[in-house]
């Protein structure tokens, strides 16, 4: 009997070979013989299909409709997008999102690199440092947003008390346009600097020390080695962190939502005074789930997606080119 040999599920070697050439007649039976494997991976694909793929396709359709979630869905063509292009609040949200992203990501990743190289040059207390730096990334954004709203409170919040003690003018942190963005950016920076530093550190530890020895013999100092060895060899990891921070940073929602709330009765415009903390995804949420404007909400979501894709591609090229 030659058939069972072919049809019994084979265990792959560590580097699996591509599927063997198939014979037409036995193909279906061969595929069916793998039913346990298909069964084992099917839950993921079922969930993916029902809760991600179909919704995404449906939301593309919704972006060309007008729908409040209850009545009939009305196809309106490009009307939502035409409205979006002229919607000054959308452009404000886009500017806010990009401003907050720059204010958060540039200092965050620079500090992460510095912290990582400092950690890489010592063998003492490393576990303590790594745990202490990593903890912010596992704490809940909601709790930390509450903390920031307490510290940056205008009446005797700690930030203003410290400014006062230093004889500096106090700031209306949660009322003025730039301070609002700065507070949100600081929140993100606090939460993700350590995480990125630990990722960089792992990358740095895989750089052979001989390279640094050789550079030292050639008379290169620590700063020179950092820019000529560490940064170029870390490039793939830097690229990874830039992409991740771009994708997550441009989708920021929880920080401004918790800081200022989005309940229509309390805060009709959402995003705080002057909507200075209104981000793209918060605007999306506000239109879709506070105003039940699903058509326009979907249009905003797709526009935000386009912005994220373009901006990620732009950052990718920027980082990839810098080191050539």
């Amino acid at each position, binding site marked *: 009997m030659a058939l069972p040999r072919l049809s019994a599920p084979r265990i792959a070697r560590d580097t699996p070979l591509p599927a063997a050439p198939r014979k037409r007649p036995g193909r279906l039976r061969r595929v069916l013989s793998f039913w346990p494997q298909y069964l084992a991976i099917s839950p*993921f694909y079922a969930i993916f299909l029902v809760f991600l793929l179909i919704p995404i396709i449906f939301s593309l359709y919704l972006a060309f409709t007008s729908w409040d*979630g209850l009545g009939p869905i009305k196809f309106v063509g490009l009307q939502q997008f035409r409205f979006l292009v002229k919607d000054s609040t959308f452009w404000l949200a886009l500017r806010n999102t990009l401003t907050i992203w720059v204010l958060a990501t540039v200092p965050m990743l620079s500090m992460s690199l510095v912290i990582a190289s400092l950690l890489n040059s010592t063998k003492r207390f490393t576990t303590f440092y790594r*745990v202490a730096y990593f903890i912010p990334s596992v704490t809940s954004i909601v709790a930390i947003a509450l903390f920031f709203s307490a510290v940056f409170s205008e009446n005797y919040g700690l930030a203003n008390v410290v400014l006062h003690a230093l004889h500096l003018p106090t700031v209306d942190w949660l009322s003025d346009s730039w301070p609002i963005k700065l507070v949100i950016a600081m929140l993100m920076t606090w939460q993700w600097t350590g995480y990125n530093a630990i990722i960089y550190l792992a990358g740095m530890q895989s750089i052979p020390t001989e390279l640094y020895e050789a550079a030292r013999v050639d008379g290169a100092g620590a700063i020179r080695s950092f820019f000529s060895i560490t940064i170029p060899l870390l490039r793939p990891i830097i690229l990874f962190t830039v992409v991740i921070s771009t994708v997550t940073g441009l989708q920021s929602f929880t920080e401004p939502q918790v800081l200022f709330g989005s309940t229509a009765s309390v805060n009709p415009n959402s995003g705080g005074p002057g909507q200075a903390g209104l981000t793209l995804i918060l605007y999306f949420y506000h239109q879709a789930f506070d105003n039940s404007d699903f058509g326009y909400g979907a249009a905003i979501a797709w526009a935000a997606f386009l912005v994220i894709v373009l901006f990620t591609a732009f950052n990718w090229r920027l980082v990839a080119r810098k080191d050539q």
Partner: protein
Amino acid sequence: MIMSKRAKGIALHAILMLGVVVSMFPFYWTVVMATNNTADVYQDPPKLIFGSELLLNIRHMLTNIDFFGSMFNTIIVATCTTALVLFLDSLAAFTFAKYEFPGRRVLFGLLLLTFMLPMQLALIPEFEIMVKLNWVGELRALIVPAAANAFGIFWMRQYTQGAVPSELLEAARLDGCGFFRQYWHVCLPIIRPGLAFLGIYTFVGAWNDYVWPLIALVNPNRVTLQVALAQLNTAHGADYSMIMAGALLALLPVVFVFILFARQFMSGAVKGALRG
């Protein structure tokens, strides 16, 4: 100017300690606020040491939100999600890591592609699906969509490939073990350390999740912990000590779990990032 090695070392640790202080300060100040009353902290100069009003603040907090009810909901959601993710992701990962079957490469490519799909695109229709299923306001609306995920399968596949020897599976097969028994009796016991990371990672993620619970649990009296916590800020803006008592109680379990498993957690997270 050339510094001595010793001076350099001191400077290095001074800078690193400064970073630690910045990292840890919010936890210290959260405790200060939660253990004093708002008036004592919100004055110039403020009270900087721990007080004795924690229980009073907690009692005030409990009159504003259903803290323990929502924490109970969060525990159910996080526990069920974690159990399902561990089982479904490790089973799928085992299949991808150790078996050849037609369509395997395409299916795995599709799985990697889902990393790039942002979830906000799916939110509105996903909510409508929950309406159709009559799941709005039910905890299963949070658990089922999260029961299997691409990151977990990807991560566990890498782990399983390295940890489970194919020879062992071959031997089990010759002994008459079918596919599922190979998974259960051979693979599972070996990949336990990997499951520890994925389990904590999933639990912490589910504990901290905010956006989807905010949308899917429409009844303000039946929410998860994070959503209840956020209600503190919108409804009762002035009493910071009361708010921070809630934040402190919500933070503690996660920080505690993280410190217990810090090494595994960090090395797992780093591996996931470096291979991504």
